[in-house]
């Protein structure tokens, strides 16, 4: 893409091409403004795409096989370890890394910190995709995925934590779709939709906080059903949901740092000036938030340990593994953050963010898989097909993520968005007034006459 941009090829970043003379059509938008040949050429040139192709070539048939031959074909069909990688990694690790959506939404929309806006949409998108793919992992894991809507419509078990998770994840997914749709409406050229969503932004954001608090916590509370099976160091009846909720906060923020780092490196052509100029400053700001989260998390981990008096377990092999997780996933990043924020070393912050993401994932995998059933003699190592499917779904996640970042105005600003909004307003107000047969202020007509050309362009937009 860099080469094309250097050659002067125009990349889609507004509704109109050639300095506002002509509109991009949908196909051109999808191809980023390149010709099909150019598009294929840049796709083939990227070695990462070849890696993806290999993963898909092996993984997609195995995913299909899972639905033809059943779960027994891809997992060890263990009754002692009913939850494997799909949930242990896919669901339990993807969800905390997606808490960025509600956090950045809250920062910008509730607290009015508009200086975070260059990265807000990335946070929202990261949230949406994380949840979406957590649900996709879940669909692969469920015995009868086509019955997924059952807890909503067929049979209710409202006393179950999973019931709450199901409802909240479903509701929150729709909330996030609405939040991210703003960028989509800009891109597709549907300002009405954008304004509609803008009106309910505050409501959506607050709904996001509620739903996130509860289901991030609920994922932890799921393990309070198995007090004897999760190792005591990873279990606490009173703190389990708080551990999951609080660790999701730095997890989500660090995921945004991680993704923004990758995006800045691999798709610099797509990053707007605003994003590029503010990224270092915002990374430091996000890292401050993440450190607060990590510090709180470390504290409540220790309190929970003291509360249930579990110090003796630290002397066991499990204890060493626990200390490894806490040291590399919490204490080390916390220290690095403190040093790097003080000295404004953005590189160290980025490294430390990756470390935190690793720590959160390790915690979830430990709770759900590695230390689960610690009293049983046999440990289960996932079937190789299970691992292949997990990697494949993660690859699909990366592809979808990249597809959206390439196109929608997430990392860059959509240039003529406001012009179109005004054009619609100019065209719509008098029409409505005529319909209602109310006396129309002359001024309105004048506005309309003045804006006759944009109004015409709006009607052509509808055809699109």
């Amino acid at each position: 893409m860099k080469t094309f941009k250097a050659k002067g090829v125009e990349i889609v970043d507004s509704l109109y091409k050639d300095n506002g003379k002509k509109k991009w059509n949908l196909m051109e938008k999808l191809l980023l403004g390149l010709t099909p040949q150019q598009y294929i050429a840049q796709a083939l040139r990227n070695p990462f795409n070849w890696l993806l192709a290999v993963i898909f070539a092996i993984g997609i048939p195995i995913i299909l096989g899972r639905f033809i031959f059943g779960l027994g074909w891809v997992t060890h069909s263990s009754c002692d370890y009913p939850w494997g990688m799909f949930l242990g990694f896919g669901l339990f690790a993807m969800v905390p890394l997606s808490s960025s959506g509600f956090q950045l939404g809250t920062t910008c929309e509730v607290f009015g910190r508009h200086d975070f806006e260059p990265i807000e949409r990335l946070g929202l998108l990261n949230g949406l995709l994380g949840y979406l793919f957590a649900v996709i992992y879940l669909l692969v894991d469920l015995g009868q995925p086509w019955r997924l809507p059952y807890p909503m419509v067929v049979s209710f078990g409202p006393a179950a934590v999973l019931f709450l998770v199901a409802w909240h994840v479903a509701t929150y997914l729709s909330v996030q779709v609405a939040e991210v749709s703003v960028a989509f409406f800009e891109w597709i050229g549907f300002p009405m939709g954008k304004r509609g969503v803008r009106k309910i932004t505050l409501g959506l954001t607050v709904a996001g906080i509620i739903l996130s608090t509860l289901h991030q916590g609920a994922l932890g509370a799921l393990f309070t059903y198995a007090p004897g099976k999760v190792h005591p160091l990873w279990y606490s009846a009173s703190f389990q949901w708080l551990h999951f909720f609080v660790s999701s906060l730095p997890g989500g923020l660090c995921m945004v740092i991680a993704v923004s780092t990758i995006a800045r490196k691999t798709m610099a052509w797509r990053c707007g000036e605003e994003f590029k100029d503010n990224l270092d400053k915002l990374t430091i700001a996000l890292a401050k938030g993440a450190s607060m989260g990590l510090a709180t998390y470390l504290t409540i981990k220790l309190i929970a340990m003291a509360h249930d008096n579990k110090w003796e377990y630290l002397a066991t092999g499990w204890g060493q593994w626990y200390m490894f997780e806490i040291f590399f996933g919490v204490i080390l990043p916390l220290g690095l953050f403190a040093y790097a924020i003080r000295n404004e070393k953005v590189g160290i912050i980025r490294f430390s963010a990756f470390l935190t993401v690793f720590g959160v994932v390790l915690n979830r995998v430990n709770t759900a898989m590695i230390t689960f059933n610690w009293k049983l003699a046999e440990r289960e190592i996932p079937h190789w097909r299970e691992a292949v499917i997990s990697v494949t779904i993660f690859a699909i996640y990366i592809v979808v993520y990249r597809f959206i970042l390439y196109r929608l105005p997430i990392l860059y600003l959509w240039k003529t968005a406001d012009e179109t909004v005004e054009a619609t307003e100019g065209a719509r107000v008098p029409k409505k007034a005529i319909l209602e047969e109310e006396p129309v202020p002359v001024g309105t007509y004048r506005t309309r006459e003045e804006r006759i050309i944009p109004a015409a362009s709006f009607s052509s937009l509808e055809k699109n």
Partner: protein
Amino acid sequence: MKRRDFLKGCMICGAASSLGISKKAWGSGSFEGYPEGMGVLVDLTRCIGCRSCEAACNKEQQLPEPKVPFDDQSVFEEKRRPTEAAYTVVNRYEQSGGPVYRKVQCNHCNEPACLTSCFVNAYTKTKEGAVVYNSKVCVGCRNCMIACPFNVPGYSYSSATNPVIKKCIFCYDTRLKYGKPPACVEICPQEVLTFGHRNDLIKIGHERIRETPDKYVDHIYGEKEVGGTGWLYLSSVPFDKVGFDNTLGNEPIISNVKEFLGTVPMVLSIWPALFTGFHLLSTRQKGHGDDHGHDAHSKSEQEGAKK
């Protein structure tokens, strides 16, 4: 013992002090089973490991033919658990006084963890005391297998189109409903298994312990464990020596979860007010809708361009 008391104390204090709401939820956590609920008393001292209960179960529940025939004792070389193909299994534990056999099946808890963890309400505790399962609504999340403290439910992983949970249902459909004992009880040649009202069985159990205190450990496993179970056990050796988990405590599993469930109404009611309040406090006078970045910034950019 000390540790458990401490944990219990912590839990009760925590629940009582943390939230008013959880107190209410706590009130429903003391269900002690239906008064007419049936159960089975298993006397491990009488079992000879003939596996005829396994065979009877297999026939009654129309399960697939096992790989190893039921009269083959070689299965005792490893510890087995109930699966989709066998709702009950007998394990052997070598003890100083000779082998002790233990039959494993669903214990039919008074407050089943599987039931409370199921988000489509597939499980029912019938008034006869059986915990039965409705495969028509099961989504296959397998949370009940995670929740069961006795590792009982199995899953038919082999089926691609209709995998379901498979577990002992106390022969509910064919026998218990009509007041008849389950197939395993009926066939047992040693009278290891005694079928009756749960309340009576507890009395019988204590009676046996009182009559021959040297023979038994002074404890009926299942009388209080995880809120009480329909199947009860008597043993001559400490229970943890023959595969029982002694660390489960007497609270039903759902009690662990209630602390979280208690916070749900709190979050639902306080958060909206709290955060909309924050919004009002932190954004003075500014009307919302026109101060959003992607709009605001592009506006200023345009203005800049015009200049």
